[in-house]
């Protein structure tokens, strides 16, 4: 019991939405509305419908040294929980205890002032995120090195390029050495090099024995650094446990997050979609269900559909979307030269991909059924996710990797190579 870092008991947070006083920005609005509601009181019970629990009875304990990921869909309460943990906002109910010095990074460069120089902003931002002055003095050179901006340190940051700005902002954050670190997913946007730096920083903190609470949408980063995951859904804890146990639950749930967009694109007349995707399976070449594929393996995507009224010229599109929302590739019946004149009733359709050359990451599959000319969308389905594994080809290498053919051409005189050949060791 002696190594608790964070203890939360029945934390709840209520927001008032709709016709509440939170919406008023002027006194006049408030006066008008209280007048109105005075006359309306009888017909409408005031509480209930306008209140919304962003978090409800959330309890957990986090031990010192744990790296905990908080996952959930949009609006599940992740950010609210993080804001409560970092004391930016108060819970409506419940009790929480925090043991240790907290550093919270909901964004990098909080409080940066454009008119101040890099040097001045290091001190200002450092103080804001909770570093002592002597601590900043001590780390100052390291921060400047890390940000790679030494010659610009005395220039106002408003003249920095956006890259320099972010590097400096992150450099300060990365020298905060708290006992408990709360990080928001905003840190995982930005370029890949930047993300990698974030991950290295989290890893270093982990080694130093710090506790890290990490909110993210990005299952890949969660998997790579967290040993425990809390899965929030609708403001409640849906699951709390080992990463490899909770993430499949979340992904299963995501799959049922069925999304019918019958007429998201202009042109569709009927209100009822003429085709649904009722199921989706990922198989390998031999027909075995899989969620992890090796780089270079082929993948079979099997779709079940239902088209009760029949449909002409459906154009099935299977898109592979990386966890950071990069659309990596599309397979389309129409473009791939497989034409389907018409479909009626229930059935399945399958696409066998060429060897997967996308880099090691987590991807999800989106299925869209269009008409032949991509003008009218019949349905849209956000589907299963899967992983591609390769020991080397990560996102550092780009989106995909395909071998090139290398050659040193004979016809071209290559003076340098002839010059050196004599001097090379035998």
């Amino acid at each position, binding site marked *: 019991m002696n190594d608790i870092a964070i203890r939360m008991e029945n934390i709840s947070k209520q927001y008032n939405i709709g016709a509440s006083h939170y919406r008023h920005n002027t006194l006049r609005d408030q006066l008008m509305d209280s007048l109105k509601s005075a006359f309306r009181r009888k017909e409408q019970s005031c509480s209930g419908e306008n209140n919304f629990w962003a978090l409800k009875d959330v309890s957990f304990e986090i031990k010192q040294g744990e790296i905990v990921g908080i996952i959930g869909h949009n609006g599940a309460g992740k950010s609210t929980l993080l804001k409560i943990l970092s*004391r930016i906002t108060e819970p409506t109910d419940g009790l929480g205890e925090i043991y240790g010095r907290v550093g919270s990074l909901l964004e990098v460069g909080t409080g940066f002032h454009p008119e101040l120089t890099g040097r001045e902003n290091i001190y200002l931002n450092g103080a804001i995120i909770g570093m002592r002055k002597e601590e900043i003095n001590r780390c100052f050179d390291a921060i400047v090195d890390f940000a790679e901006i030494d010659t610009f340190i005395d220039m106002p940051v408003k003249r920095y390029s956006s890259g320099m700005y972010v590097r400096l902002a992150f450099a300060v954050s990365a020298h905060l050495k708290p006992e408990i670190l709360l990080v928001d997913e905003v840190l995982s946007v930005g370029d890949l090099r930047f993300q990698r730096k974030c991950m290295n920083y989290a890893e270093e903190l982990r080694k130093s024995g710090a506790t890290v609470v990490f909110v993210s949408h990005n299952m890949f980063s969660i998997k790579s650094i967290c040993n425990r995951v809390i899965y929030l859904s609708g403001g409640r804890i849906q699951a709390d446990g080992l990463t490899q146990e909770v993430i499949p639950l979340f992904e299963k749930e995501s799959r049922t997050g069925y999304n019918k967009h019958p007429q998201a694109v202009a042109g569709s007349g009927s209100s009822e979609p003429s085709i649904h995707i009722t199921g989706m399976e990922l198989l390998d070449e031999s027909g075995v269900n899989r969620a992890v594929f090796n780089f270079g393996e082929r993948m079979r995507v099997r779709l079940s559909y239902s088209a009760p009224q029949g449909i002409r010229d459906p154009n099935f599109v299977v898109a592979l979307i990386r966890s950071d929302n990069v659309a990596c590739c599309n397979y389309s019946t129409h473009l791939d030269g497989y034409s389907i004149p018409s479909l009626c009733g229930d059935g399945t359709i399958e696409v066998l991909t060429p060897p997967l050359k996308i880099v090691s990451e987590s991807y999800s599959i989106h299925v869209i059924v269009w008409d032949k000319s991509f003008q009218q969308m019949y349905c849209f389905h956000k589907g299963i996710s899967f992983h591609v594994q390769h020991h080397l080809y990560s996102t550092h290498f780009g989106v995909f990797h395909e071998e090139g053919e290398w050659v040193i051409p004979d016809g071209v005189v290559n003076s340098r190579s002839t010059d050196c050949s004599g001097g090379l060791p035998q």
Partner: protein
Amino acid sequence: MELTAEITSRKPSAIIQPRKGLFQLNLRDVWNYRELLYFLVWRDVKVRYKQTAIGAAWAIFQPLITMVIFTLLFGKFAKFPSDGIPYPVFAFVALLPWTYFAQALSQSSSSVVGSSNLVTKIYFPRLLIPLAASVAPLVDLFFSLLVLVGLMFWFRITPSLGLLALPLFLVLAILTALSVGLWSSALNVRYRDVGHTIPFLIQVWMYASPVAYPVSMVPERWRLLYSLNPMVGVIEGFRWALIGKRSPDFMAMAISLVMVMVILFGGIVYFKKMERSFADVI
């Protein structure tokens, strides 16, 4: 691993729970964050005259030009009494705390809303925001104090022992600005009307304070009501401490002091109450 040793004392370093009482002010937290207060003030001071041609000279110009106008209008044309002191000095001494107060109030009023990027992203005692905003304009005050010294040399006025009390009135001026600033900055988060009201309020307030005229011009029977304005005490105090105005209105000063304390305490309580929803409402 040194972390482990530090956390063995099993007292939570922070408790998260809804604050119930009105008077749970937790002012010690402000003290713990004093270094951040220093940096916020430092930022405000640094940023203020960046990219201006004459820089800190602005700090002197504003009260100086107002003084010249006042001297012409009220001293020369309207012939206001000035308690036997040359009118320019009489007006300038009052303009020191007044200019400070006007700046501090208008800046602290917009301070919390202006710091929404901080308020929604990180925790620190929110009281620091209006506090820093009301302390930063003191720098301007010190610059104009130098001008006053010059003026006093010119008019051959020597300060009396009352000068020793100047810091007291300085503190009173800060507290006055802070006390009103607490109310207005917290109100401004929810009602942006405050932003439109403050410049007007400051203008009216100046006429209700003895900046251009002496307190003795106010009829005796209104004096008590008049002294409820804390700036009356502050300005009277400045005149007494700096240029040795005879027979200052100690009664007015006492009333001002009490008023400031009441507004300040109320302001802290109100600010702390509103503070809980800042991040949600701002």
